[in-house]
């Protein structure tokens, strides 16, 4: 792809100069913060009642307030929150060219359209990975501040791997929204598609077919439904990979072959 380096440089500049890194950073930070709050409540319900965080009637069930539980929460937050935040990143990176009507400037250049689309996906993936790293770092800080028990280096490394794997699955699934942003020429169609996918992922997982619907897979594999709930098989991961590849291929083909009015 001709001009990949140039395309990467410009996509990086555009992303870096926008407010989006801050907004998405803020959004994804809610995950470790809320998770931390949960841990505090679990750890000391009396304290939480005294501060009015929960009512006296609240029954806090299940789960210990320790590092394994907190890391588990973070992985689930990346699966569910990431579906929205990473999705918004992808939708912004592609949709903004239509919303700001700058796409025309990208279409007849010595830098190929393929390089521009490729650079956009690289930016989306690295941006989402950075957000995941932020969740992990914040999680470490908050967990230590609360004084969660059960820490070990091995556990932290395991958790990083699990968080990374969940993030990778979630990131792979945003490419269809990039396609929707391009074909729909703006923000609204892909946002609609994203919320439809998230809604369906909940319903389908609840019905027990989650392993066969790509958008249900990251949450299931992160253990959101409990360790013994639904089995995610190799086929489920393959489905995620295929969906991601199809989204990328569709986006590329759209940019390369469709009429750009």
């Amino acid at each position, binding site marked *: 792809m001709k*001009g990949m380096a*140039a395309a990467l440089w410009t996509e990086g*500049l555009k992303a870096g*100069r926008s407010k989006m890194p801050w907004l998405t950073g803020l959004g994804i930070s809610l995950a470790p913060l809320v998770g931390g709050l949960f841990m505090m409540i679990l750890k000391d319900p009396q304290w939480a009642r005294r501060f009015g965080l929960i009512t006296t009637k609240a029954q806090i069930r299940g789960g210990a307030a320790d590092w394994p539980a907190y890391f588990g929460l973070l992985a689930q937050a990346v699966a569910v929150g990431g579906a929205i935040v990473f999705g918004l990143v992808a939708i912004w990176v592609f949709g903004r060219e239509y919303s700001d009507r700058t796409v025309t400037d990208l*279409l*007849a250049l*010595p*830098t190929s359209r393929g390089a521009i689309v490729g650079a956009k996906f690289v930016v989306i993936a690295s941006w989402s990975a950075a957000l995941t790293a932020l969740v992990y770092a914040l999680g470490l800080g908050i967990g230590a501040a609360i004084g969660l028990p059960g820490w070990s280096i091995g556990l932290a490394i395991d958790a990083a791997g699990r968080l990374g794997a969940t993030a990778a699955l979630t990131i792979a699934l945003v490419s269809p929204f990039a396609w929707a942003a391009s074909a729909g020429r703006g923000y609204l169609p892909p946002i609609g598609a994203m919320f439809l996918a998230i809604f369906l992922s909940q319903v389908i997982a609840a019905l027990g077919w989650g392993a066969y619907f790509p958008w249900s897979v990251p949450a299931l594999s992160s253990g959101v439904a409990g360790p013994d709930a639904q089995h995610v098989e190799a086929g489920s991961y393959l489905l995620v990979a295929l969906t991601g590849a199809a989204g990328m291929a569709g986006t590329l083909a759209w940019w390369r072959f469709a009429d750009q009015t």
Partner: protein
Amino acid sequence: MDNAITTAGLTKGYGDRMAVDRLSLRVGRGEIYGFLGLNGAGKTTTIRMLLGMLRPTAGVARILGVQAHPGAGGLWSRVGYLVETPHAYPELTVRQNLEVIRRLRRVADSKAVERTMERLALDPYADRRAGTLSLGNAQRLGLAKALLHEPELLILDEPANGLDPAGVVEVRELLLGLAQERGVTVFMSSHILSEVARLATRIGVIHHGRLIEELESAALEGRRRRWLVVDARDRRAARAALSNAGFAVGPDEDGPLELTDPRAVAGPDDVARLLVGAGVPPTRLGVEQEDLETHFLRLVGAEKGVRR
């Protein structure tokens, strides 16, 4: 002849609506070609096909000898363009916007950005965010993006849009300079004939997707309609006298008389003599010429509500 742009039977249809209908035109190297049409005539659709952004339903467009298509990377480094209202990344400064284009255009010379800003008088705004620019300066930024890599061919859609009168003159001189000094070919669309007539060497008129006329700008003068306006204190008598002498006198409503007869246009003195002889000396006598806009509207048959 070595052409910068050749189209043969270029057609773009949406269902049964023809946006561009069998358009065949040639633009020679170094020419400034004015592509004239009303809004919706098919100008922008044509330009998008020339730039490989739209796939023609039929026909081909060849740009600098290469068939226009999205993958023609090498070709696009020789072409600069501006399509419709230019837009820039609002959160980036003018300089950053141009830097983006410099990289994507693979221009190695890092001075190109400064040079282009200077040329388009954008340097005072270099560090302003593009989102805060006035319409005129946004247009200059659009032109700067088209010119940055010093292309052989410029394809410009309504380049004077949004510019103030001084800006219009500036851009006109800039384009003339590029064509005359550097042999740059300019293909520019417009809906204002008088603007195009000052600049273009040749003009093509598109209407409902069809090229309905193509002419040298120099020939434009000869094509404009001319007529003799005559007025007298007694218009009825003057009309009668002129009719008797074999002139077709218009218009029928009240007001000064108009003679389109070439004899009258060429010889107002004869008409004056005739009227004096008939006892109705003229109070006014003058040759008038259709202005360019009226001529254009007449060409495209959109003269409703327009005199003549």
